[in-house]
């Protein structure tokens, strides 16, 4: 019944024993941050009168839905690595990894093939929920150079009328999205391994779009539904990683920049058969 804990560099994380999901992060300075992570999906807008969700448009029909089943999971622990293998649904699974010498938590996800037999296009997100007080503010690196301040339902240079409360708050992510609680001196950063889209629709929350499969053309030029068949025609499967850091703001700014460079300039790993150790030497 007790939470399962894992030790990373400068933090420990606890996991819910009934679902395997992460539930909090305790920092070395004694602060404890609630951190929940789950997967949800949006149904794509499909009314003929309005342009539906498609390659150019993100137009969800309503709020995101969760996956109904309780996740199943296995945990593996060794001195070098702590891993949770978690099945969320038939088509969403992930591995969470914590290394004792790394301040980041790794979320390695597999999403797809997204089922569409029910004739509903689906867009899958990863949602991070914390108790940080963020006052509608979040940050993305959308111009690829600096962290840009974003405020929910607000634009700095014109009066913004909220017509699309979800999509209207989505911004491009080149490599990272973050939340900051200045009063508590805490920052959450999620580094991505590719360009994605994301938002903070509620205080303390971040969501990132992972995979989309939609059944209607959005009438903006591509003239096809965003419905990739994959190799076997059942739909595309995607794999990817998020690297999550919770830390004080100063340390966080150093750590996420260094990690970002390491991910961007990842090593080339090459393999060669070799006959003996002497050859290697």
């Amino acid at each position, binding site marked *: 019944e007790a939470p*399962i804990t894992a030790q990373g560099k400068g933090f420990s994380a606890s996991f819910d*024993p*009934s*679902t*395997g999901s992460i539930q909090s992060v305790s920092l070395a300075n004694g602060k404890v941050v609630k951190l929940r992570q789950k997967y949800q999906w949006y149904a794509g807008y499909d009314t003929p009168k309005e342009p539906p969700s498609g*390659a*150019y448009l993100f137009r969800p029909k309503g709020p995101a839905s969760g996956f109904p089943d*309780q*996740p*199943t*999971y*296995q*945990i*593996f*622990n*060794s*001195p*070098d*690595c702590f*891993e949770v*293998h978690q*099945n969320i649904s038939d088509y969403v*699974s992930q*591995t969470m990894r914590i*290394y004792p*010498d790394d301040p980041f938590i790794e979320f390695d996800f*597999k999403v797809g093939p997204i089922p569409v037999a029910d004739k509903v296009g689906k867009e899958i997100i990863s949602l991070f929920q914390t108790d940080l007080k963020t006052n509608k503010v979040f940050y993305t690196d959308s111009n690829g150079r600096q962290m840009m301040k974003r405020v929910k339902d607000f634009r700095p240079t014109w009066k913004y009328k909220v017509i699309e409360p979800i999509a209207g708050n989505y911004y491009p992510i080149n490599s990272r999205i973050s939340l900051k609680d200045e009063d508590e001196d805490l920052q959450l950063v999620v580094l991505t391994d590719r*360009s994605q889209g994301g938002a903070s629709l509620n205080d303390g929350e971040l969501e990132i779009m992972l995979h989309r499969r939609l059944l209607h053309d959005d009438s903006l*030029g*591509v*003239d*096809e539904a*965003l419905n*990739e*068949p*994959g*190799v*076997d025609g*059942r739909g595309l*499967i995607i*794999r990817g990683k998020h690297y999550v850091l919770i830390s004080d703001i100063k340390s966080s700014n150093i750590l996420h920049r*260094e990690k970002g*460079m*390491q991910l961007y*300039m990842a*090593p*080339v*790993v*090459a*393999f*060669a*058969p*070799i*006959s*003996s*150790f002497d*050859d*290697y*030497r």
Partner: protein
Amino acid sequence: FDAVDNFHRAMGILQHHDAVTGTEKQLVAFDYAYILNDAIEKSMDLMNRALQFISSKDKSSQSNSDPQYTLCLGLNISQCEVVESNDKVLVTLYNPYAHEYDFKVRIPWQESNYKVTGPNGESLNATIIPIPGFMQDFPERKSSATHELLFKATLPALGFASYFVEKVSSNKPTPKLETILPLTTS
């Protein structure tokens, strides 16, 4: 230069906004994937010769005994033919980042014992971790690996490090993982 030019051409085409954002037609998406894969494959020989050159003692000549390097493009689904079909493998990592750091190497593995030797001749500790069931079922995956071998490589700034990885059948027991909770939830 021809090999590098393939990359130049591929990246030139794939900087088009349709390729970046995924707003291309499906047949064009297939073509983009083909162009990039083709460039990678045509550059394998160049990469092999470059690694042979920088890891060779005698830079003036290359011999047939130099290791023949290849990339494993299926590593993200825990698939690598070179590792799976050979008992002794050289794993060489080139670090383009201008700082030294530790990198976690994960290679597809079966449950056999291992010996990992680092660049200074030191024996390294590694961990054998099961590949999740949802990855083993991946439709495109053609691999008999059920586990991954995890070890820490220390990469020099703008340099390379080679590790000798060997399957061994000694009586030394494999370090066992502690399985905390095997699927007790419904």
